[in-house]
Every structure is written in C-alpha cells, then in structure tokens.
C-alpha cells in the first residue's frame, strides 16, 4: 500500500510537471483560498484576543462607573445633573455589604511631581480606602495604604512603577506635588493601563500615577455641599456572568434612583462587553470565513478544470496504464493523488502567505491580528477536502474509460 502510494505520487508528480503552468495556476487558486482563510481567521483571532485583553484589564467581576459627559466638572448645570458623589459611594457600599468592595476616586492629569531637583509629569489619583482591594493592585515594595492613612489624613501615598523608574527612586521617599509635600510609602506592581477604548471610560495608566488618600489631594470638587468623585470601581465577590449582570443592573437602578431618575452615569460591565464582542465576533468570523471559503471553492473548480483537461489529453495513456495492469481503483487513486499534490503544495504556500498577509494587515491597516493555530490546520484541511471533492469527478471519469476504446484513440 505504502509502496503503491510512493510509486503513484512520483508518477503523478511527473504528470503534473508535464504542464507546469497549468498545474501551477490551479495550485495557486488553492493557495489564494487558503491564504484568505488563514488571514481572515487571524484577524478574527486578533480581535478576540483584544477583547480578552480589555476584559482582563478592566476586571472580570468589576463594574466601573463614571459620570456621563462633563457635567461634574463644569458645574454650570449641576443643579440638574448631580454626577457621582461620596454619597453615591456610601450608598453602594452599604447596599453591597459583603458581596463586594466599592471605591471611588478623583483624578488630576498632568501634575508635576518633584523629587529633590527632578520633576516628572504624572496623574495624581485621590482614592478611597477600599480602592486597592477593588482594583486588585498591591505593593511591590514598601507597604500598602492602610485605614490609618485615610483616617489621619496623612500625606502618605503609593507610586506607580514607571513613575518611580522615571524619578529614579524607591519608597520611602519624600516628594512634592501640587504645592504640598507627601511621603511615598509604597511602590505598586506593574499593571499597565486600563484598556478603556470604546467603553466611554476615562483613561488611567496605573504605572504612571501617584495614589493618595482622597482627603489629602487638592482636586476634590464640592458642588452643592457634596463632594464629587470622578468615578467608582466596584469589584464583586462573584464570578458567575449572570449574577454579575444582575447585580450591575441593580447598582445602576440604585444610582439612578439616588439621582432622582436622571441617567447621568456610565456604568460599564466588562463581562457584558465580552458577551457583546463575542456575538459580534461570531457573525464577523462567519461572514469572513464564508467569503474566504468561496475563494477556496473557486480554487477547487480550477483544480477540477485542470484535471478534466489533463484527462482528456491522456486518454491513451490511461488505456496504456490499464493494459499494464492498473485497476480502476488505481486510476482513481492516481488522479486523486495528483489533486492532493496540487492542493497540498497550494495549502503550504497558502498558509505561508496567509501568515505574511496577516502581518501586512496588522502593519498597514493597524488591526490586531493573531495567528490562529486551529486556522493553520483548518484551512489546509478544508483545501484537501475541496481537492478530494472536486478531484473525484475527473478521477472517476478517467477510471470509467473503456481500455479497449482508449487504446484505439490516436
């Protein structure tokens, strides 16, 4: 069996190189189809990874709440729009009880941080006590902020990793910002930045920020006697998607009620983003792979066409092979092997150019692509199926020739 396979592959190869251009073109058709599928799947996989990264960054069991628009900041129509306040935070915390941790923050970007003679620009974030817990970010060196730091309103703070590198320092160290002195008591682990694109949330780069107890920073705005927050982070102690979504709905309702029915908050549930993205992703993938698959079918038709032309020319040769002892099954196998040689070589170059194409798309279009390993198997696999499918008609046509008549052909 293996011997026959070896012999026939060599034989089929010799028959294919007889018409090199013809064989190359039909193989090229397959290569293009395979490349299209590989590239489409890579784009789809890239988008998927992007979503997963976003979710990772925003937190799986986390709700993020920020005021809608700039109402809290300009204060002009603050009579109507209330923004998010300490009051909201307390309400949510109380309501949550042991089901999670809620924290609030105020934020000021572009603050000059001074260490002796050095100055670096960073974001200063005023945080409430449970913030570290809610963001799940802790010290790498020094210590975390403790309740006493908040109670005593001491100017103790935590520093982001990169900011510390930029300033060339490690805690504990005295720094200055916004006209006041502060002590950095802890250095935070590297965490990168929040991937907030497309969510409506404001950006935050953990590694380039300074985190201080909210009462000690000079950026708190008070409107109508209430302290405004720039946002709230709620981390729930549950992982079930359904429960998270249901609690998120309740928190939203709670805040809207507290704001007397005004929908002035943006509550982002990363889990929901994931779900929406997955659905969109699925439709997108199906459409793209279908289109790519169509080009593979066109490639298959090319193979079939080439084989039919070959067989028409090789009638006498087929007759001869039958005279020499080739059974019909051998003839079928012989032509299917020829089709396989074409689809396999087409697939090989298709996979290579599909990968190259993916990176070209990433480079020129700027989409995230990730080579999808299943795609590298699925695409050639489909190509081989297409080859078998479209090759079988010509192969059986060849095998059904009457040897006596085939030999009479001149």
């Amino acid at each position, binding site marked *: 069996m293996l011997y026959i396979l070896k012999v*026939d592959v060599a034989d089929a190869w010799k028959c294919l190189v007889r018409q090199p251009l013809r064989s190359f073109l039909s193989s090229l058709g397959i290569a293009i189809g395979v490349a299209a599928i590989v590239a489409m799947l890579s784009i789809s996989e890239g988008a998927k990874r992007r979503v997963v990264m976003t979710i990772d960054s925003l937190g799986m069991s986390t709700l993020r709440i920020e005021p809608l628009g700039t109402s809290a900041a300009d204060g002009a129509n603050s009579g109507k729009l209330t923004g998010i306040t300490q009051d909201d935070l307390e309400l949510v915390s109380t309501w949550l009880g042991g089901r999670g941790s809620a924290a609030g923050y105020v934020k000021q970007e572009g603050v000059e941080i001074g260490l002796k003679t050095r100055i670096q620009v960073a974001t200063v974030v005023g945080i409430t006590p449970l913030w570290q817990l809610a963001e799940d970010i802790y010290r790498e060196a020094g210590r975390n902020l403790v309740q006493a730091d908040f109670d005593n309103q001491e100017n103790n703070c935590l520093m982001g990793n990169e900011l510390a590198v930029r300033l060339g320092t490690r805690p504990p160290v005295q720094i200055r910002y916004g006209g006041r002195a502060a002590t950095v008591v802890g250095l935070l682990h590297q965490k990168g930045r929040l991937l907030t694109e497309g969510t409506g949330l404001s950006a935050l780069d953990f590694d380039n920020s300074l985190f201080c107890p909210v009462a000690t920073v000079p950026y708190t705005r008070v409107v109508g006697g209430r302290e405004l927050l720039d946002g709230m982070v709620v981390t729930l102690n549950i992982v079930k998607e359904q429960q998270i979504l249901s609690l998120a709905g309740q928190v939203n309702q709670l805040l809207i009620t507290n704001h007397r029915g005004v929908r002035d908050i943006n509550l982002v549930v990363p889990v929901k983003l994931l779900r929406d993205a997955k659905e969109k992703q699925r439709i997108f993938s199906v459409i793209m792979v279908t289109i790519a698959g169509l080009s593979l079918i066109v490639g298959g038709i090319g193979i079939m066409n080439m084989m039919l032309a070959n067989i028409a020319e090789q009638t006498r040769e087929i007759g001869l092979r039958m005279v020499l002892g080739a059974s019909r099954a051998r003839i079928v196998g012989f032509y299917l092997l020829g089709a396989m040689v074409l689809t396999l070589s087409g697939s090989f170059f298709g996979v290579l150019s599909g990968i190259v194409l993916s990176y070209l798309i990433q480079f020129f279009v700027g989409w995230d692509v990730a080579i999808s390993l299943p795609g590298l198997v699925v695409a050639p696999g489909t190509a081989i199926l297409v080859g078998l499918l479209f090759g079988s008609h010509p192969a059986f046509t060849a095998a059904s020739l009457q040897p006596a008549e085939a030999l009479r052909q001149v």
Partner: protein
Amino acid sequence: MRRDSEFQSYRVVLIATDIHKTFDSGNSGKEVLDGVSLAVSPGDFVMITGTSGAGKSTLLHILCGLDQPTSGEVFFDGNPYSTLSAGESSRLRGECFGFVFQTPHLLMDRTVFENVTLPFCYGPKITKSEIGRRCMDILEYVGLGKDGGRYPATLSGGELQRVVFARALVREPRVIFADEPTGSLDRKNSLNMLDLLKKKSEQGCAVVMVTHDHSLKSYGTRFLSLDKR
C-alpha cells in the same frame, strides 16, 4: 464456425471458446466476431491474419480481458475471465501478459528507461535496484543498451518499437500480445522485431500476433484467419 485446428494442444495457457462480439453501432448491431475459438500453449507463435476491419484487434482485446465478448468465454490457466474481479483481471495483465501495439504508446515526457520501468508501477513488487537491473538487461537485449537516457521523440520508428518490446518483456510475461507490431516498420526492422518475438517464443513464451503481412507467416507455428468467407 472456424476452429483452431490443433485445439487439443498439450499444457494450454489460454483458451478462447466460441467468441462472439457485436458492437452496437446505431440501431443495427455489427457482428465483428462470429464464434472464434483458439487455444494457446507455451512456445506457440500464433499468427492472426485478416483484412482490415475483420476484428483482429477486437479479438486481441478480448483475449487479454480488456474487452468483454458478447458471448463465449476465455480461460487463462483454466480460470474463466467472467469469474475474475476487475482487480484480478488487472493483476493478470500486470503479471502474465505483455503488449506491443501498432503505435508505440510511449510517454513522451519520460526517458526510454523510465518508459521501460513503467510496468513495475503495477507490480510485481521488487526493489528499485532490481527494477533498474532488469530494465538495463532488457534494453541491452533489444539493442538499446546505450539509449536509456534518451527521449522517445529522438528515436527512430524501429527503435521506438523496440522500446515498446522491451517494456512488454521486462516483467517476463507468459503471453505476449502483439497487434501489428511491424505495421509502421520497414522490412529490415520488421524482421528484427519478428526475430525478437521468435526468440521469446522459443524460450517458452506464448506469442499471439496480429498481422496482415502474409510474408511473415514463416515465423508462426499456428495460424488463425479471421477473413470472412
């Protein structure tokens, strides 16, 4: 009905009994063979003669199982063809028969040597070096020992026919079928071919040859005429 005069030969390999063949051309069936019987033993040199269209090629195709008779039966080693599966019939052609055609039927994109190795694609299964050795030997035998690397397009008609002959002999068949092997050859090459065939039949190989050249009759040991009376 015509009958082979020496039907009761000793140790028969190939027997055909009362072969009829009718082609359906249009409405009227055309009877090409009307009851041909034949027995071939090892060492026989059977000459089938007849005018063009008498059914010589058709008979040859039936004798080697490439075509089926309308009625009648062919036996090889006592086995009737009608009981052989398609695979068994193919194996029979691969292992026991050799063919020479009127036109060479060579693969033009392969060298002489590759053409002669082609039958080994379909058995018997022997090593590559053994195949090479046997092909070289047979090319030597037909006088083309130095031409293995040439392509068919560069050979003369007589040389081409010798390549075909080498291809037919390389698997050491028990029966050689030759359909007008000298049809495209001049006198000298024709006699050359016939000498090769004769030598084979003297070595114990059965030869069934179609010809309409009555001057070659001296080579035959048995004769069958398909001419309509």
